[in-house]
């Protein structure tokens, strides 16, 4: 197991130490001064998350208005360290009930020290699961008054819990109504040339689950992914269905997923933790269904006038619709006056981002609204600086649509008591960085 940290510092934006915890004595106490001097006070802040000063390496990450800095002096596993930070922040958030910022840290520093003692030992990461830690670190964080009230739960045998085979789930949960919620959330990243050819395109997706199930249920998830389907057809010795199969790249699972079974049977089977969790993450680069096509024509008429025509076409099913569509069409810095004509939604010029912003609240499928705008520019002396034409950016959300075409084929729940469960499945596709050159 690699060392992840010799010391952890939480600093505010000015560089004051909010919390520090030294796990090993191979780094001195003045390390944070070095960080302040050589990273925070230089322009290099934010350029590279890993820096070496003297014999020590600094890994840092900014979360809201706090810097979390890990210092190691040996050859540490960087990925492990960053994963630790991310998980720790998630843990803190679940304790504080939402925000993780300077104020929350100041209000909870006793709790944080207690947690820091628990989640890392002599530089080695330990159990970071909030569900489990909450069993024995019972001190509640100071919650904001708006978050939900803590429930008075009995303290079960924590030791057994941690050392048991299913470390992430308590025994003896009982729900009146057994429900499973499953969301597939995808975000589309696209870079398209002005001619409409795709330069770069991928989808990153995650499957989020929320379980309210009694006892120790065993779940099995079937997707329309290629490997799973092939394996299934092998097992059942019948040809694969002609339907579309999806090739998933870079799949990562939550720790509850039984990887041996995944390797042998290619099925995702797991005993879920109680409550909300992220079951898996994946990436798709082939066969992406783009929800929108954008056809821009931008003409510069002389030095002081521009004509902008943008047509946006929704290519998903006519019964579906996209929400919160925002199209940002960049214009030169010296834009003075604009006038618009749009077939739906509203458009305006935002000087602070140098863009024409076109908002369409509800965008049905298989339609193509257009925007035509006239832009007047003010003349300047510095004509040499030609306009660089940054790409058009787009934001949207399309419910019940997956850009990858991924579908849940089944979600089976087995439990000893054999209760009935209700399964809810949702799909949603969002824009990641959805850019079209113009």
């Amino acid at each position, binding site marked *: 197991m690699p060392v992840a940290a010799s010391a952890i510092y939480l600093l505010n934006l000015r560089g004051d130490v909010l919390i520090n915890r030294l796990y090993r004595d191979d780094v001195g106490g003045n390390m944070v001064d070095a960080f302040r001097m050589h990273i925070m006070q230089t322009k290099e802040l934010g350029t590279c998350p890993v820096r070496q000063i003297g014999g020590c390496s600094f890994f840092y990450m900014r979360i809201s208005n706090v810097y979390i800095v890990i210092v190691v002096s040996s050859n540490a596993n960087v990925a492990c360290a960053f994963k630790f930070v991310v998980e720790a922040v998630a843990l803190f958030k679940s304790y504080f009930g939402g925000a993780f910022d300077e104020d929350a840290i100041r209000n909870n520093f006793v709790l944080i020290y207690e947690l820091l003692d628990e989640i890392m030992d002599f530089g080695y990461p330990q159990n970071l699961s909030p569900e489990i830690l909450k069993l024995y670190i019972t001190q509640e964080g100071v919650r904001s008054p708006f978050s939900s009230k803590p429930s008075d739960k009995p303290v079960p045998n924590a030791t057994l819990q941690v050392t048991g085979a299913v470390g992430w789930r308590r025994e003896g949960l009982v729900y009146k109504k057994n429900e499973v919620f499953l969301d597939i959330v995808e975000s589309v990243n696209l870079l398209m040339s002005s001619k409409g050819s795709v330069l770069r395109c991928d989808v990153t997706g995650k499957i989020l689950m929320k379980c309210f199930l009694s006892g120790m249920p065993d779940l099995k998830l079937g997707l329309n992914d290629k490997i799973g389907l092939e394996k299934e057809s092998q097992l059942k010795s019948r040809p694969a269905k002609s339907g579309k199969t999806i090739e998933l790249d870079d799949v990562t699972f939550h720790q509850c997923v039984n990887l041996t079974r995944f390797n042998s049977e290619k099925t995702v089977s797991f005993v879920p933790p109680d409550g909300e969790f992220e079951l898996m993450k994946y990436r798709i680069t082939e066969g992406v269904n783009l929800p929108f096509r954008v056809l821009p024509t931008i003409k510069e008429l002389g030095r002081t006038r521009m004509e902008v025509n943008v047509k946006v076409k929704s290519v998903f099913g006519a019964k579906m619709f996209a929400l919160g569509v925002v199209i940002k069409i960049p214009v030169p810095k010296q834009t*003075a*006056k604009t006038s618009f004509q749009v077939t739906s939604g509203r458009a305006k*010029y*935002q*000087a*602070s981002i140098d863009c024409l912003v076109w908002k369409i609240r509800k965008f049905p499928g298989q339609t193509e609204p257009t925007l035509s705008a006239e832009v*007047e520019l*003010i003349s*300047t*002396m510095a004509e040499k600086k030609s306009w660089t034409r940054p790409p058009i950016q787009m934001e949207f959300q399309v419910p019940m649509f997956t850009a990858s075409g991924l579908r849940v084929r089944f979600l089976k729940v087995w439990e000893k008591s054999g209760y009935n469960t209700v399964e809810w499945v949702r799909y949603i596709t969002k824009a990641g960085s959805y850019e079209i050159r113009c």
Partner: protein
Amino acid sequence: MTMHGMRGLSVFISDVRNCQNKDQERLRIDKELGNVRNRFKNEKGLTPYEKKKYVWKMLYIYMLGYDVDFGHMKAVSLISAPKYPEKQVGYIVTSCLLNENHDFLRLAINTVRNDIIGRNETFQCLALTMVGNIGGREFAESLAPDVQKLLLSSSCRPLVRKKAALCLLRLYRKNPDIVNVDGWADRMAQLLDERDLGVLTSSMSLLVALVSNNHEAYWSCLPKCVKILERLARNQDVPQEYTYYGIPSPWLQVKTMRVLQYFPTIEDPYTRRTLFEVLQRILMGTDVVKNVNKNNASHAVLFEALALVMHLDAEKEMMSQCVALLGKFIAVREPNIRYLGLENMTRMLMVTDVQEIIKRHQAQIITSLKDPDVSIRRRALDLLYGMCDVTNAKDIVEELLQYLSSADFTMREELSLKAAILAEKFAPDLSWYVDVILQLIDKAGDFISDDIWFRVVQFVTNNDDLQTYAAAKVKEYLDKPAVHETMVKVSAYILGEYSHLLARRPGCSPKEIFSLLHEKLPTVSTTTIPILLSAYAKILMHIHPPDQELQSQIWAIFNKYESCIDAEIQQRAVEYLALCQRGAPLMDILAEMPKFPERKSSLIKRAEYSEADTAEQSAIKLRSQQQTSNALVVTDQHPANGATSPISVGELSLVKVPSMITSENDTSTDLSQQNGALSNVDTQPPSADLLSDILGPLAIEGPPGATVQSEHNAISGLEGGSDAVDGSAIVPVEEQTNTVQPIGNVAERFHALCLKDSGVLYEDPYIQIGIKAEWRGHHGRLVLFLGNKNTAPVVSVQAIILTPAHLKMELSLVPDTIPPRAQVQCPLEVVNLRPSRDVAVLDFSYKFGTNMVNVKLRLPAVLNKFLQPIQVTAEEFFSQWRSLSGPPLKLQEVVRGVKPMPLPEMANLLNSFRIMICPGLDPNPNNLVASTTFYSESMRAILCLVRIETDPADRTQLRMTLASGDPTLTFELKEFIKEQLISIPTAPREAAPAPAAAQPTPQIPPNDPAAILAGLLS
């Protein structure tokens, strides 16, 4: 300002100020800029009020650092608005946003001109202010006459004329041609009659600029300036508003005195007297008071007055008054004042005569050295350094040494360097110098640069009587428990060379010395180990009879280092071991190092380069001036290679020029190669700088080495010819005869000087003429040192230079009388116009007692001095050689009756004439090929190529071919070389005299500073 009611503007500003961070601010600004652009585009709808408001906003945004180039046009267009509020905004914003190179400004020129020639004074002021701030060349061309008219007009109010003067100053700086010198000088003088002090101050600024360019034309202003100064100093007719803390317009005073400093001198006695009265008044009237502002003002005036006093070369009395005043300043507790006092005192050092007076404040200056403020300490150090001379050197250096241990680290290096330089220059005796440097190394080892210890090694090597002392001294230091590495280096070197001189003393047997040194070996770094190894080898060599035990011990060490990873150490170990094993005869190679050739202290050179501060610079400059004045000795103490070492001259030259022996392969060259490698550290990059400074000149510079040799030839003959002691400049006076016979052969001396740059040109019982020359390109600077050797003055001294046509020579004034036992120097500038073999002659006459002596001496400003050796590659050589075909550019001649000499000797001879032999270019080993460049004013540098074919059967004849780009040069150079080959000064090459005879110890009369220095610098 008319910003009342501009609600939009103040709301915007408060918005921006309320922004939490830079991003928010940027968003707010971008939004506002979008708004402003939108408004500017709505040309019709903008009221003057709105225009003004948005332009103000734009200015504010610009001041926050954002780009607002779209709005320049708007700002410039506001200038032409008819009403004051808009016009004012236009002018102010334009002068903030635009600079003189902006194209938009061109659009405004006409409007601005209209405002200037208009009747409205307010508009005139606005326009003049803007032009005064951002006016460029074009403004200068089109507006200058109008501005001049305004400045001179009597109907204008002083306010406008004041601005006009400053505006004209700006325009003048942009384009000096706008002020017509002839016409303007009178008007300027007329302007100085002005009674209004405001106008006068502005005009004085203008005058400073005018005079700094050309003071000749403004002589007429000089008395008026003095008059103004007088008026101010007497506080006559100075209105209350121009009095600052009781001082009448200090700014005007300072500027006026600045103007006066641009005039070289003041001739009119009345004016001069008045001025000195005024200065006297200023000097007398200034004192340190409580009020800071008053102090600032009065000191500004005072220091300007001091500068003026120095500039005018006031009488000694006034100078001493100045120094006394400064002495008061440096005793004040207030650090700023003390700083100024010290700095100005350093400046005062530039002026002659005051040094003695400054010395009185030495104690006070030394206390400043302990001031808590580092800048004061630095100034004090500079001043001490500057004021040091022979009389107080001992005190000051002691003080610096004492201070060194408490000084802070940032200063130590500088401090130690300065202490070392002072010790070197003003040492009353050499052992003191050695003491000081060793103490320095002991106290501040980390801050001692290599130059310092190289220098001490050079001194010890060159002074035989110092060697024992130094060896004993370093041993004492080595006995101490903790020794700095630099000290180990020095002591290893010195003990290696001279520990055998101590051998009789208790505790100094070679064995003990060795173990003392060897103790340090584990603690030192790789740069020191080579020196230690050399020391071991030398110690081993000096033991007679050989000590088997020590030998095996040392061999074991060499053995161990034979596989060292450091190439330098490894090579030394291997070579020393091989040398030791060869036995006694070869040990000669490890004999004592020969004397170093005399050269300028690298420390002083370094000090000259390293300093940047102005005051420091001045101190250094001063020092370097003194340097030349102290260098009154031109000794002939040539390095006595041949004398001390039994190796024959030829062998030595082989060692010195390793490139010449690479082809041969017998044992002797093998060995000399090894020796060459020992000293030729330069060839090994990792340790190139280790000893190169010490050993460099011996090992690397081939041609000077050869020079040394032929010098020796020339001078050993001279020694045979006369009893004159060659080693010291000033000869004991006893053996005087009445007949004035030159001591030594004048012709020989001339020939020797043709080859080297310093030496004695002429000497007789009364007088000695030394020469020191520096040659750079076609320029040369000779310094004649006329030294009176007797206790009576030499009078009616006359020196006339008979200059040949091809040279331009300027001899500075030669004093009529040379005081007893003094030496005067006369610099002589030489410029070479074209090639010629003619020689300049110095017609020198003087009268001593009743003897009138007249000698005609040839000056060694000969052809070869303007040559610069240059190494050419084979391609370069042959392409040049072929392109210069046939006479007159290429001449060939068979020379007969050449003095027979071996080929290497001839090569050395040519090298010593700065004609560089290029070995390997000619396949025939009997031929020599050489190249050089010739510098003259008419032609600059010309490459000359020489080829000499010798006949091994008949050494008395050879064929010589010369080529260069100029026919005269080719001819003259050919003749010159021919002369040299035929009429070489035939020095009788007698057996090398015993070392003691060759190196007469300079007898230093204990109380003669000149002679002491002579010994020191020899």
